[in-house]
């Protein structure tokens, strides 16, 4: 450095200064662009109806969160979408307001269309639900509009965008943070990951609670059960544990029952991981 002629050294210093300033500006921009962390304060909790669930989920499943649900296998698709609607029903119970469901144009999945009567099991009667179908960019725009609208409890996105661009995802996340509405992103079995999701849940169907067939009728379908595993938790280590939860359509609460644990099936992550890895490589 000292070997350089004086004028040259000044130039170099100036250039370094400019680069530093540029870097500082870029850092400031990133800081300004940063999305506020989730707040799990009492007034932002959704409350799941079971203290153990509240403990396990409240960090990430609270007002303003982006939650991705993903089926453990193709046949669990309906279960995973149902779980997303149960979360929305919970958000509606906690915060009041409307739920917007955004479906991919031409049908979100190949297992038929959402049934109005079926949605009632999740506390979503016609007065509480708006459904819109759109494709590509427009669907993401509709999600953002829903998240920004006053008086909305949440948005359930069904089978949207196979290829997602990061800035669109961050826009959605920011909109959710600002309004406090939740975004339940119900992905198909082979969809791209929603990168900035606050929580990612892998969902599989689980057998109904009544172990004794003589205890029928248990109203199969009215009380769906799921095996849920959190595979991503933003800013915290996820609880790598399969939780068996049941939905109570009367109180709109989840119930956790360890006794439900079904050891006969392989753990969820063993089945879920290969498909995720395949996607990432592609």
């Amino acid at each position, binding site marked *: 450095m000292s070997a350089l002629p004086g004028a040259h050294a000044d130039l170099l210093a100036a250039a370094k200064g400019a680069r530093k300033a540029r870097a500082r500006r870029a850092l400031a921009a990133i800081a300004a662009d940063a999305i506020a962390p989730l707040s799990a304060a009492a007034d932002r909790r959704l409350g799941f109806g079971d203290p153990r669930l509240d403990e396990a989920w409240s960090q990430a499943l609270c007002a303003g969160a982006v939650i991705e649900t993903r089926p453990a296998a193709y*046949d669990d698709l*309906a*279960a995973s*979408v*149902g*779980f997303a*609607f*149960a979360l929305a029903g919970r958000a509606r119970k906690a915060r*009041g*307001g*409307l739920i*917007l469901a955004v479906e991919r144009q031409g049908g979100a*999945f190949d*297992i*038929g*269309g*959402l*049934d*109005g*009567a*079926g*949605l*009632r*099991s999740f506390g979503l*009667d*016609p*007065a509480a*639900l*708006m*459904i*819109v*179908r*759109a494709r590509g960019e*427009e669907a993401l*725009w*509709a999600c953002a*509009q*829903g998240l920004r*609208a*006053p*008086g*909305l409890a949440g948005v359930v996105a069904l089978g949207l965008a196979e290829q997602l661009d990061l800035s669109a995802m961050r826009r959605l996340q920011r909109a959710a943070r600002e309004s406090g509405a939740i975004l339940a992103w119900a992905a198909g079995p082979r969809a791209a990951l929603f990168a900035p999701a606050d929580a990612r849940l892998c969902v*599989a*169907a*689980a*057998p*109904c609670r009544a172990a004794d*067939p003589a205890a*029928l*009728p*248990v*109203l*199969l*379908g*009215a009380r*769906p059960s799921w*095996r849920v595993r959190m595979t991503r938790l933003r800013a915290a280590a996820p609880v790598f544990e399969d939780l068996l939860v049941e939905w109570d*359509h*009367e109180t709109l609460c989840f119930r956790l029952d360890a006794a439900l644990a079904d050891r006969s*099936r392989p753990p969820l992550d063993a089945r879920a991981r290969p498909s995720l890895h395949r996607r990432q490589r592609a």
Partner: protein
Amino acid sequence: MRARAPLSTADNALDPGPKSAAERPFAVVVAQAGAQILHGTDLLAAAAGLYPGMSLADARARLPSLVFAPADVAAEAAALRRLAAWCERWSPRIAMSQGPRGLDGFVLDATNLAHLFGGEAGLLTDLLARLRGLGVEARAAIADSAAAAWAGARFDVAALSPTGAIWPAGETGRQLAQLPIEALDLPANIVAELKILGVKTVRALQRLPRAELARRFGPEPGQALDAALGAAPEGFEPIIAPHPVRVRLRAEAPVISDAQIFAALEKGLARLQVRLTQKDLGARLLSLRFYRTDGALAETMLRLARPEREAAIFSRLARERLATPDCAAALGAGVDAGGFDLIELLVAESAPFDARQAAFAAPSAPIDPRDAGAALAQTLDARLGMDRAQGVVFFPEWLPEEASKRAGFAQSGPATLSPGAPGDPLLRPRPLFLLAAPEPIEAMAEAPDGPPWQFRWRRRLHRVARAEGPERLAPNWRTETAQRTRDYYRVETPEGRRFWVFRAGFYGDSPAPRWYLHGIGA
């Protein structure tokens, strides 16, 4: 009533054949009863005495240089309707008019409107000049009644001039008397008979005693005369329904940039708000119309989830809509074609304005989810299209595919289900997903009339660990005799996946009962 009837003759835009020299007379012909008949002529041919209805052979004998082409009647009628709609810039009341060979013109009701255009002469001159600018040669007349204007446009020589024919008020009888008998809208056979009797002009007809005329020819000639003289009421079927509220912005020079379009739009929307407030109305359907200088019309509709009148709301929705690819392309094409010279905002559907909504704007007021939904539905519809934001509507039907449908969010309304109604989940759980049509499955049941113990759906085998049912849904015996009774079962596989399957028909029936899968539960 002062009415005028421009009669478009040969529209250049529609000419399929080459019009070799602009100076040669031109006509389009149709085949009728084995003969070629002139369907329409241009001004040159008309000036030489050719008229629609003349046979082609006669026409060519009189005018050997005549160029002709076959007429596309349907396309001409459609083009004429478009042209008539465009003429709404002069009068909101427009009716199509029939000639002896189908649709061949339209009537504008110019009552109390002419002063806006510098008098009747000014109106007619402006109309004809603009039509000429579009390449449409038209004949026009203005007279005391629609029937008189119809006659004037077709048979008065002055209608061929660039200023059109203007029959001064009260002189209809005198003007009409000079015209041939065809100028009255009479059935062809009556015209032919009258001519055989030597009644060739309207004057000759007027001289005949009415009673004799009626006894010989029926009531038509008298009625036609009365209609033309304005002595009898006329039927007038406007092609555009009257609008309670409209705002029109005429541009001094064509509007050619987006900024200008939006500036004009803002101005118009503010005026619209004033008009709606005066009438205490809210708009439910708003039409934005952009009249291009070349005669085309770009139109888009905004559906509002509830009656609105705030300019700011309209403006936001309009911007959202105009930014969509379709609208942007239409506006761009308009700008390329020379711009727009008239923008019209038209309330196509309105409803009384609900004062409760005004309170919604106040930030402190608690938000009713339904109101929030209405605002969101409006925003979504503005960009995605009408009624794209949907709600669920239940019907008192037992068949699951009939029991709930989707409708525009504004129409879906609040929940009206009473406990125990078909959609009540506490009574009869329904699956989250319902297939558009039940899909046949191969099912094996332990008992012929029991639930299946395994089934194959989409080539995958599912075992049934438990089943509930049946829930028997019978078709409406009065209307749907082809449907079979369905026994629905809720079944669960050992993994916990839930399906809704049914057996159509009863055991022992012919044909044998079949199994279907209808829904997938959460």
